[in-house]
């Protein structure tokens, strides 16, 4: 029988599963985990073609298995579509500390190196589907910015 305690324990396991591309944030921080119910974890992909999606599912599976939740299944849903609004506040803080400007509605990003707001976009696409390339005009460092999505 699955108790509330078990659901909490599953959430704890999921919080330990790191995103394969940005290992400082967990799949929970990124809002990829939509729901934890009795016997089922519901996840959603960030971008349709993101290669990390399959790795994430595999990592969640092994983490659940290792923690003794072999009978908890994983379901992937598309709707409602993932949005950067679902990234938690602590997730945004971790991204910033890691050197990635978190998503924000502001027109300019805050440089994660020196904190300056004098920044500009270099390219709308970056090293992964979820990021754009930016540059700081004060410290001149390039950095990734999470795209608002």
């Amino acid at each position, binding site marked *: 029988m699955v108790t509330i305690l078990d659901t909490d324990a599953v959430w704890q396991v999921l919080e330990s599963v790191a995103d394969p591309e940005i290992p400082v944030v967990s799949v929970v921080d990124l809002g990829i985990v939509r729901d934890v119910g009795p016997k089922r974890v519901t996840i959603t*992909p960030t*971008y*349709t*073609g*993101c*290669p990390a999606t399959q790795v994430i599912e595999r990592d969640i599976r092994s983490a659940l298995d290792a923690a003794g939740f072999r009978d908890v299944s994983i379901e992937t849903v*598309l*709707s*409602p*579509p*993932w949005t950067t609004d679902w990234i938690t506040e602590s997730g945004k803080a971790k991204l910033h500390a890691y050197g990635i400007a978190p998503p924000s509605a502001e027109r300019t990003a805050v440089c994660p190196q020196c904190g300056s707001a004098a920044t500009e976009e*270099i*390219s*709308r*696409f*970056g*090293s992964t*589907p979820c990021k754009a*390339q930016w540059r700081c005009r004060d410290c001149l460092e390039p950095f990734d910015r999470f*795209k608002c*999505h």
Partner: protein
Amino acid sequence: MASLPPIDVPRGATGEGAFDAPAEELRGVVFETLLRLGDDSLVLGQRLGEWCGHAPSVEVDLSLANMGLDLIGQATLFLNAAGEAEGQGRDGDSLAFRRDVLDFRNCWLVEQPNGDFAQTMARQFLFSTWQKMLFEHLTASSDETIAAIAAKAVKEVTYHAELAAEWVVRLGDGTGESRRRMIEGLDWHWRFVPELFEMDEIAAKAAECGIGADVAKFRADYDARIRAVLAQATLEPPADQRPILGGRRGHHSEHLGHLLAVMQYLPRTYPDATW
């Protein structure tokens, strides 16, 4: 204009011996609609992948590869759904890698060769502007899977359309050479635009039952958007040419066969290979 090839009506749609004809017909329309959507994304995704390592700068290389990745992700979702709708045990991979050129349902625009960077961006601009509007309409599709994929993908495609429009302006209103190349790129692709708005029997049926979109509804918006960006790029719309149609019925330019030969080489040479 030359007569079009006959419409390939899905098996079981009509005729004697078709049991539960309406349900079978609906299944055929859903399958065909998903194939068209999936093949557009797949073929353009493959085309953009050809740029990998060859783009004018590393930033552009990343842009093109990322857009290709988005499109292949969409194709995976559409074609997996098509396989399920068909119910013959085929999945996205078998539809992508084990169909021959005449069974592909993409439009002519997406299979056109990359040409130079301006030609690639002209194609992207004409296609992504259309695909964005199409997906906006499809979010209201009566088919839940199509609606969910469209709602997910429209956010990605909006980005593609914006990026391509920026390049049309930058190259069109750029140097003499970039301008000449953008004009040539637009000119090459212009004749494939009418096909995007073609409503054949299957598209009409799909729109009628709410699965597909009535593309005529956003033709005016599309034309207005294209003209607005071209005006910003200080370019005139190209002269209208005889439209090329037929991709939705499996008639393609010679370019698609070459693209598939590359894309399908591995799974055809080593069937069921795993690693």
